[in-house]
């Protein structure tokens, strides 16, 4: 009898705790935000920094009670899909988002993936925030894509101009992987360099994406003895190998890229040979970072073990989505409302000191506001860390 009572009490306790837990879960409805991008393979670092930024920020929001949009406070759930840098997989990922009723997706990370998902996004009323640069995605009649970072045709001219004025650069050589992103970035870079009056001494050497030994690839490029070697669209996995091979072949000029890189990967792969390497950094510096940015970095590091400087940029997409929805809650199920809100949207930027604002830009590049405003931070690698070379603003 006593045993039966204990069992009954235990069953009641379990039932009660389950109900309590159920009511706790039911406290906030969930707002799902999608991510479709590359989280495996040589370019994985680009997508992983997206996914982890979103997950770290969502966990932070949920831990502090949720995010209030209109009269409702939501818990944020991140639904992720690894497109493996394959456009077919990216389409499948965007279709999965549509099936789950998600209207706001971050990614894809590369040009062909971002172009491939456009019909799916437009047909299913999805706004997506790619990290890819083709202007057609952001120029009318396209209207569902919002560029999540600074494009290479915006950062490239700024870097070349800085190096011409400060380092006396006169000649430049480009090398790119043989795939759509790096090739289009190379073409954009060549056009920008020529427009600035630089002499392009080599631009047709390309390499296979899976190349691991770059010495034979770089040998003909370095024979042209450029003042500046641009690694167009280089992935974080390939950058240290290219830099190392170039330096070991005796190249003493400047090396730069318009893609974001990872300091630890550079240090491990190229060590001191990477000193002086110029790249576009995450959209923050110690001088620009607010307390919120420092807390985000700490939370991200606690959650995943190590931080990626690129996440200083990647943290913004989710913030822009949520803040724009907050500005007009009707946008939650209606992206047309979201689009209309974008034109006049402005909110305090929590990740920067001073009175910086979150706002959409892109009028000069795309003819409409289809780009998030983040600072252009250009870094130089020195002894294992990135140092700020200069900061600029787009649009």
């Amino acid at each position, binding site marked *: 009898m006593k045993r039966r009572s204990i069992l009954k009490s235990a069953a009641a306790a379990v039932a009660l705790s389950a109900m309590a837990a159920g009511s706790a879960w039911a406290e906030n409805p969930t707002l799902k935000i999608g991510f479709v991008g590359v989280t*495996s393979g040589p370019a*994985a670092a680009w997508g992983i920094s997206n996914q982890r930024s979103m997950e770290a920020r969502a966990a932070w929001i949920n831990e502090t009670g949720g995010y209030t949009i209109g009269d409702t406070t939501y818990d944020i759930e991140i639904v992720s899909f690894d497109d493996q840098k394959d456009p077919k997989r990216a389409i499948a990922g965007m279709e999965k988002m549509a099936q789950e009723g998600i209207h706001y997706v971050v990614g894809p990370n590369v040009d062909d993936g971002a172009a491939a998902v456009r019909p799916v996004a437009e047909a299913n009323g999805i706004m997506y925030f790619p990290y890819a640069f083709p202007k057609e995605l952001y120029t009318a009649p396209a209207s569902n894509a919002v560029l999540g970072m600074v494009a290479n045709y915006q950062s490239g001219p700024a870097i070349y101009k800085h190096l011409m004025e400060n380092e006396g650069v006169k000649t430049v050589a480009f090398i790119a992987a043989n795939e759509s992103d790096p090739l289009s970035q190379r073409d954009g870079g060549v056009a920008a360099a020529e427009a600035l009056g630089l002499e392009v001494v080599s631009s047709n050497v*390309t390499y296979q994406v899976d190349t691991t030994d770059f010495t034979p690839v770089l040998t003909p*490029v370095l024979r042209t003895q450029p003042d500046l070697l641009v690694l167009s669209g280089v992935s974080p*996995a390939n950058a*240290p190998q290219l830099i190392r091979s170039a330096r070991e072949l005796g190249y003493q000029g400047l090396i730069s890229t318009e893609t974001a890189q990872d300091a630890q990967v550079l240090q*491990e*792969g190229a060590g001191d040979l990477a000193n002086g390497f110029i790249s576009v950094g995450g959209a923050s510096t110690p001088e620009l970072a607010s307390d919120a940015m420092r807390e985000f970095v700490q939370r991200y590091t606690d959650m995943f073990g190590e931080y990626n400087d690129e996440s200083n940029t990647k943290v913004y997409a989710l913030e822009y989505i949520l803040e724009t929805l907050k500005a007009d809650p009707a946008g939650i199920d209606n992206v047309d409302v979201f689009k209309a809100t974008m034109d006049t949207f402005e909110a305090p930027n929590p990740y920067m000191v001073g009175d910086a604002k979150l706002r959409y830009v892109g009028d000069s590049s795309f003819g409409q506001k289809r780009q998030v405003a983040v600072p252009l931070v250009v870094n130089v690698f020195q002894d294992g860390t990135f140092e700020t070379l200069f900061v600029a603003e787009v649009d």
Partner: protein
Amino acid sequence: MEQILANGVYLGAQYAMIALGLTLIFALMNVLNFAHGQMYVLGGFVTYTFYGQLGFPFVSGLVMSCVTLFILGALIERFLFAPVIKRSSREESTMLLAAGLAFFFDAVILLVFGEKQRGVPKIVNGVFNWDFRLIMPYDRILICVLAILSIASFILFMQYSKTGRALRALAQDRTAAQLMGVNVDRYSMIGFALGAMLAGLVGGLLVTITGVNLGMGGPTSIKAFMMVMIGGAGVISGAIWGGIILGFMEAFGLAYLAQYGDITYLLIFVSLMIFLAIRPQGLMGKPWG
């Protein structure tokens, strides 16, 4: 020209080592090991962990890569390939198993080592520079020499040791070897483990030059298959020739064709198709297998 020849020797030596393990496993068990590239990556990550992360000497990292992959190879053969081969006479069963293993290793590597490119400190500093006609970092020269020594040691082992003779007998005629008293199950396991160990060894050697990342496995397997097809499947000398030929084709192609864009591998694939149409068994293989 000196630079191109040096690049060819270096690439050829590393490619030959990659192909050796693959062809050994094929010769012994008729298994196309699609997970060979992933084993190479795993070997690289083991050396990265011991040498790059934990600070052990490079040689001990290399030994750990060999030991880890040898044990892993033995377990895979004993518990996965041997039962499948016994139960199914269809060759695609082992091919599917190997492909599944490749995906499994990719997932494990992602979980354990992460998605990032990893590298280790240089084992030797400095660059050999002969009047800018031939530039070769000392660590590449060292790795090239170690690769050539490893290949030579492997050939001597296969030629003169009792285990090597048993493995060769097994490769030539499994039934005859069994009738002559060779313990087929045991030597199949040792052979597979040796093949995996070679993948681990070359992964450990090359992590000092190329670094290692999760995505390297698939392309490495494809290159290894190309070398084996050029040289002849299941023939040790064929794998070595296949590696050397591919290395030199790549070095010459990248030097002379770079100005026309990335057509080196396009031409290599076209050449391979024409070559296989004329000689499907490869350079050293026999038409009857």
